[in-house]
């Protein structure tokens, strides 16, 4: 019961966030001194044509009235139509969101499966060579710009070595798997399409590493300090005194207890990966939400910008809920009440 009420409270909270974010974004975007109708019709159209388009889109109505209409639609799952393309925004979100989610999951995998082992390695070899190496790697991760890293990787691994493709989600001459989740890797598995699976994994690696490098660095640093703290605890000493092998001590006693702060960080990182994928998407021609958001923002296409903002804003409370649920698994002292 407590769990159900916990979920209910969190969902109500998510709606609160939705209301707040949509309200703020809506009024800020309408306060901009830029006319989306003028942007959509190019500089060659006449003023009459622009005015007519504004009327057709309902942009001449009071902002409050426009907001109420928008919010009403939103509650029914209707994100409105893009001013620039006249397509329903929800269609565009459906097309672009899975690509960004797939890329972010790829980056998260890199962060978790590279960052945590590196952090553990670093903590176990404190102030020795592997530790120095990992700390240098982490330092670079925090300071190398994504754009530079992406182009560097493409230059080396595509242009020089030819090991990886330059960009896109799948080879131009491989048919994408039928749309189920929109995640090419998962959809290829579901369809049993090995060629599509190979090609989409092949395309996912460089961008995942590019986007995930920063998170990997943060995760490694976090793991290192968290592990160092736990390794100094009495129960670890006890475990070692009992003669347990290092492997068991590290994996079962130390790492598990070190994981709570790490998961907090990874949860936050995942949210920032989703919203921070813009540059990676540009460098790797990745057809995701980032590119869509940029095109929409420069064209002051309010409904499209709102759609992206609302989705991004909802991800954070959802993620934090998942992280909280994970805590309860890792540490029985934490409950959902």
């Amino acid at each position, binding site marked *: 019961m407590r*769990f159900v009420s916990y979920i209910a409270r969190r969902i109500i909270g998510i709606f609160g966030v939705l209301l707040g974010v949509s309200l703020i974004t809506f009024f800020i975007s309408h306060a901009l*001194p*830029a*006319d989306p109708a*003028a*942007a*959509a*019709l190019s*500089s*060659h*159209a*006449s*003023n*009459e044509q*622009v005015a007519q388009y504004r009327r*057709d889109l309902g942009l001449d109505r009071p902002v409050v009235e426009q907001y109420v209409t928008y919010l009403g639609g939103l509650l029914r799952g209707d994100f409105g139509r893009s001013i*620039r*393309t*006249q*397509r329903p925004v929800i269609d565009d979100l459906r097309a*672009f969101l899975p690509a960004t989610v797939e890329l972010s*999951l*790829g980056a*998260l*995998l890199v962060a*978790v499966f590279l960052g945590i082992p590196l952090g553990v390695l670093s903590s176990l070899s404190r102030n020795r060579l592997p530790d120095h190496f990992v700390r240098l790697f982490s330092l670079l991760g925090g300071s190398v710009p994504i754009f530079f890293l992406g182009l560097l990787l493409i*230059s080396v691994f*595509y242009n020089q070595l*030819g*090991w*990886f493709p330059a*960009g896109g*989600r799948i*080879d*131009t*001459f*491989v*048919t994408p798997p039928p749309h189920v989740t929109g995640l090419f*890797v998962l959809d290829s598995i579901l369809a049993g399409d090995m*060629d599509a*699976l*190979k*090609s989409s*994994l*092949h395309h996912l*690696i460089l961008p995942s590493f590019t986007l995930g490098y920063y998170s990997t660095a943060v995760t490694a640093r976090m793991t290192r300090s968290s592990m160092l703290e736990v390794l100094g605890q009495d129960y670890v000493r006890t475990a070692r005194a009992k003669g347990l092998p290092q492997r068991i001590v590290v994996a079962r006693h130390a790492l598990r207890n070190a994981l709570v702060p790490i998961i907090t960080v990874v949860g936050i990182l995942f949210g920032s990966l989703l919203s921070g994928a813009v540059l990676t998407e*540009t*460098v790797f*021609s990745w*057809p995701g939400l980032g590119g869509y958001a940029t*095109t929409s923002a*420069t*064209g*002051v296409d309010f409904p499209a910008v709102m759609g992206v903002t609302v989705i991004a804003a909802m991800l954070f409370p959802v993620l934090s809920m*998942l992280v909280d*649920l*994970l805590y*309860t*698994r890792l540490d029985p002292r934490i409950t*959902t009440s």
Partner: protein
Amino acid sequence: MKPNTFVLPSVVMAFLLGACAPAAAPTAVPAVPPTAVAPAKPTAVPNTAANTLVYARAIDDAVTMDPAVAYEFSGVVPVSNAYETLVRYEGTDYANVKPSLATKWEIKDNGDTWGLTFTLRDGAKFASGNPVTADDVVYSFQRVIKLKKSPAFLFTDIGGLKVESFSAVNEKTFGITMPKTASAQAFLAVLTFATGSVVDSKLVKANEKDGDSGTAYLQDKSAGSGPYVIESWTKNVDIRLKANAAYTGNKKPSLNSIIIKHVPENTNQLFMLEKGEADIAGNLSSEQLDSLKGKPGTTQLRADSWTLAYIGMNATVKPLDNVKVRQALRYAVDYDGIVNNLLNGKVSKVQGIIPKGLAGYNDNAPFKQDIEKAKGLLKEAGVENGFSMDMSLPSSAAPGGAQWSDIGAKLQSDFKKIGVTINLKPTLEAELLTAYRAQKLQMMGEDWGPDFADPDANGTPFGNYSAKSLAWRNGWDDKESEKLSKDAALETDPAKRVAKYKVLTEYVMNNGPFIILYQPTEGFGLRDNLKGFAFNPLRVIDFSVMSK
């Protein structure tokens, strides 16, 4: 409370782990991906196929593939390959329209209107197999006007046309009644553009949904009679065309499959071109084009563009209302410095409002930096102590490859020499346009390209205040210029017309609210086995004449 709370996270983790395992072995993936598994998809051709063209460029400007709505480069290029227009240009002759869907046409003087009659080509068929009839033309042109989208002004404002202006005289004869306030010659030029495409009315009507005139249907496919059909458009991924098997015209394509691939980062375009994975790279910078010199398998091409980069001066703002001040500013600019240093000399110095390549181009370029003369003019205008002015510039690249911010900084230092202080205001394009349309800018920078191959496409916007375009946005209400631009547009004798445009361009050059900075070129990186590539300044790339 034994938690089932772990179900969702563990599903996620299971997925992550599942996806991770094969990811660990990237070397297992063959360097050359195999052909597609689904033989039903006609796009499944090998990478190296001689009959396939891959054109890498940014295509996120595309809004639709519907000819009545598309106005952006990435929409216009596929449309102009998938549809036929009544008349078209051939090669680089933009002075004379040639037959396409119409084999002949005549313009009759009906007293207070022009009567245009077009005879359609016998045997012309759409890709669907339906014959092309005058009813299709009426439907297509009415659709442009009814939909009221970006290119509609070409019909309503340039042509002065309404829904009832079009008629099907018989199955193969199509008529337009045009008011005398519009130029029939100029409208023939409009008809060569993608907006003049003839759509398969039977097919489109059958696919109309909720009275949308088929816009949803035509968004990512074609219903035309051109040498290609638009097979698919996956947003921010690619646009695919294939040869139209039922094509009845005389431009039989040699390349079967065209893939316009979205590659927003031009460094990637360059790499793909060098490795032979792209045949055309569309957004290379001047430096990148130069870097291709000597690279095996590649070549480069700089094509003419009719775009003009200009600075507007709002003539309602003091002291810009004084023609001498505007002239002084024109004499303060170091044009050669901009052309040679900021744009590597790869653009032309043009100072008239009609670009090189169009009839009526005026090659007179009287302005070069002359600080003494400029100061003298300011003195005559009574502002010898200078003044300060805002200059709004797009926060993006200027045509030809320089940044507007760099051009702005150069102008700022040039104007400083005559005591004029410029406050640079980098502005989002959409915001700039909104203020410009409301006459609210002081000085600004933009570019302008003609919509059709006729000097009127620039003469009216730059010269005629009543047209509420560029002259209006800069608050330049000049009756003489208005009269000259109208006269020149409506002149039917070609030689007299050129002479009239000479007078107009000369007048605007010295009196108008514009500083024309330069005319850029459009650069392309190409594979050297690609033949027949040409970019026409009306932004058309004809795939049917290319081969490998």
